């Protein structure tokens, strides 16, 4: 991986990185990490289109489909540009893919999808899924999702994922054939149940806590306020609470900044009108007015870039959920182990009591046998035999569960470490690109106001 180092340095040396470039850098970094899949193919979500059709209940609906393009890597590097393989998928299919991955690889922090509904939109008041800006941002988010999966050491070799990219028809059936739905349901149930684990791995407990904090802080940064003091359990819930909360959407810094810039546009208009009644001042005013208009217009670019930054944070808001899910899954396996172990212990105790005739713990059976007389030796023999079998099975189960737990802890921790590194890198890059954006905004501001000053001098 000697290459990744120099790639990084090249990225940093470039002072005028535009946000789209830095987005590309993110992709490049993922590609550089070089899973075998990405070494073979280029993946992109190239377009989005509106479709209408009949849905499951035979009602007419409009939905958006996204064009996934794949291209063999060698062809691109050879200089020829063959037509890429492509197929159309809609958002629900992406969701299906992700759910499959969640169930099949519970120890992986699975990359999140872009938000289902336009909740965290900064300027548009309506949560319109058909809005072209929203669709565009979603397209970018979906592409990002695919690249993240494709660059994951474990997920990238999944066959269902591969066929998602390459087989348009029949993919859905293939997914259902894996029978993951059954697992999904039980998993969901388990994850939502409350249970107490006696000996969770400390690291996982810390990670879960970290996931909570990360989600909380990013939510606030994106100007989400939880209703009252209720903690929001998932990112989607957070989004829901904004919609319901009377305080939302709270005024946002970006909106306010928008206001500041746009009002300067009024200077342009008034200067222009004023210049009409002045003789010597006219020209200076008129040209100053143009610069005020330019200043007002420049905010649109700025906000687009801020939106992009917000998207980067948002991804990790949703990633926090995925992280917590893995920690919960660990708790579940640990709990199941503990339950099995507990069960085994109690069975062993019962055997001992039965064998020695002493009652160490209170049991109804014990009491009744005391009251109504001991069982026959045959009955006792039969019981003992049954217990022995159960204990054997129990020990097997405990052994199994123990292994499961260990396996899970091992592979989950590997992925969590991978995730941490990725998160640190990505968020740092995001901060850097935010700074670059601010720098660009400041430079533009300096230019506009210097120009305006020159015009004012001519007044």
């Amino acid at each position, binding site marked *: 991986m000697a290459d990744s180092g120099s790639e990084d340095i090249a990225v940093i040396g470039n002072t005028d990185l535009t946000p789209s470039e830095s987005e590309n850098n993110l992709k490049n970094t993922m590609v550089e990490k070089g899973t075998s899949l990405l070494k073979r193919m280029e993946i992109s979500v190239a377009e989005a289109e509106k479709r209408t059709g009949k849905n499951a209940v035979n009602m007419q609906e409009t939905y958006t489909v996204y064009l996934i393009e794949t291209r063999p890597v060698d062809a691109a590097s050879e200089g020829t540009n063959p037509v890429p393989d492509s197929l159309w998928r809609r958002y629900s299919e992406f969701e299906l893919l992700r759910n499959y991955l969640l169930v099949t690889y519970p120890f992986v922090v699975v990359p999140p999808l872009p938000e289902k509904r336009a909740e965290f939109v900064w300027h548009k008041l309506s949560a319109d899924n058909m809005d072209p800006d929203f669709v565009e941002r979603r397209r970018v988010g979906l592409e990002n999702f695919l690249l993240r999966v494709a660059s994951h050491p474990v997920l990238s070799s999944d066959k269902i994922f591969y066929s998602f990219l390459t087989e348009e028809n029949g993919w859905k059936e293939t997914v259902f054939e894996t029978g993951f739905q059954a697992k999904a349901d039980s998993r969901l149930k388990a994850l939502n149940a409350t249970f107490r684990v006696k000996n969770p791995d400390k690291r996982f407990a810390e990670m879960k806590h970290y996931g909570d904090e990360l989600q909380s802080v990013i939510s606030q*940064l994106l100007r989400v306020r939880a209703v009252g003091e209720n903690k929001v359990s998932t990112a989607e819930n957070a989004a829901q609470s904004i919609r319901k909360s009377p305080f939302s959407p709270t005024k946002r*810094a970006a909106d*306010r900044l928008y206001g500041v810039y746009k009002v300067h546009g009024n200077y342009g208009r008034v200067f222009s*009108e004023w210049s009409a009644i002045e003789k010597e001042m006219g020209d200076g005013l008129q040209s100053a007015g143009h610069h005020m208009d330019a200043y007002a217009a420049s905010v649109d670019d700025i906000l687009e870039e801020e939106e992009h930054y917000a998207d980067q944070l948002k991804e990790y808001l949703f990633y926090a959920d995925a992280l917590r899910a893995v920690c919960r899954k660990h708790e579940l396996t640990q709990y199941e182990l503990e339950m099995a172990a507990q069960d085994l212990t109690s069975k062993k105790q019962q055997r001992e009591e039965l064998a020695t005739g002493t009652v160490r713990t209170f049991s109804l059976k014990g009491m009744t046998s005391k009251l109504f007389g001991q069982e026959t030796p045959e009955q006792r023999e039969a019981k003992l035999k049954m217990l022995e079998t159960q204990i054997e099975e129990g020990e097997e189960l405990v052994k199994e569960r123990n292994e499961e737990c260990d396996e899970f802890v091992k592979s989950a921790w590997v992925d969590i470490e991978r995730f941490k590194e990725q998160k640190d890198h990505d968020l*740092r890059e995001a901060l*850097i690109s935010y700074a670059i954006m601010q720098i660009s905004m*400041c430079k533009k*501001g300096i230019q506009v*106001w210097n120009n305006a000053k020159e015009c004012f001098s001519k007044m």
Partner: protein
Amino acid sequence: MSGPVVDNAVPSGNSSVAIPTDISGQILDLDEDDDLEVFSKDTTLTEGSSFNASMQTSPASMINQYKFEEEEEDADTKDIFVTVDNPESLVTAIETYVTYRVMTKTTRSEFDASEFEVRRRYQDFLWLKGRLEEAHPTLIVHPLPEKFVMKGMVERFNEDFIETRRKALHRFLNKIAEHPIFSSTEDFKIFLTAGELTSHKKQGPGFLSRMGETVKAVAATVRGVRNRPEEFTDMQEYVEAFSQKISSLDKVTQRIVREQKEYLEELKECGPMYALWSQSEEELAEPLTSMASSLDSCCKETEERVKQINDHLIPALHEYVLCTETLKAVLRRRDNIQADFEAKTEALATKKADRDTMRDELDKMEDRLEWANNALKSDWTRWRKVMRTDLRSAFIDTAERNVNYYEKCLAVWESFLHSQRTDAEGNAKDDCS
């Protein structure tokens, strides 16, 4: 010299013939007016009502009166410096009010000393303004800050309010000092030098005569002007349009300040959030802390930017909003003088008796009108120039401050970026090995 002394001098305000209630004063001033009569054909700019201790303008400044549009107030030739500062609350049995220290440094010969220090209250400034307007109805007096604050519950003794007012009073006096006519008035001198003004305030046209003037003014407005010279109509149209534009600019600027303040409120919350976040992180702790402090720095700069617009651009624009009221009043007064003249001309045509006296009066009124028109024309040109200078420098100042703001923010982010990149380079090198 026949008739009231007043006829030779330019009468005050809106009356063609001010009938002083106290004639004795007039007679005493005969000598004074004899001196002035020499210049009567040049239509001197003496104070209207002759029995106030006004107006011993030097012949030099009187001759220069028509040339003052060419005069430049160079810093080198400035021979009087006035400051208004040091506000203090004064509590008496009846009321509480604020006084300001007015300091004067001058080399002018008509002043007894070279330095003066007096204390004045807002009412005193009002008095001065009134006197100047009375004496020179068609000259443009720079506006005073408003009496009451219309918006909000700002109290008269609120610090910000007092400071804003002090600055405006300072500008007012300086504008008077820079005005070629006003700065040489006796009233101005008295204002700057007299220990207390009360005795001076008692002089001047009595209440009744002022009443008479007001009544005549209303009558004149009703009567209207017949043949207003085109240039004054042009002036009026300009004032109308200018008034709208400057009002709009005032409103736009206030709106900008409001939006900036709201933006600042939001921005203030960001830094602390990044600081909080950094506590949960290891590798990211440093960049996040750095981010937090960068945002905090930008907040400070934004606060400074808002303050500066508030302290400089807004008062400058606001004063010119008030100016438009002054300009409208000046144009009205000029119209009234003309209306009076026209009325008298008509009266002459109809009246049989007293033809001679009336013709004399008419001549004087004609003179007066001509004088008023010329004064206005000159001062108008002067005002246009001053306005241009003032507003130009206010906008240049604003542009400079904005550039400064962005430069400071730029430095903050460049330093953040630099620190992150040098760190990252260091890390990348580690990855390589």
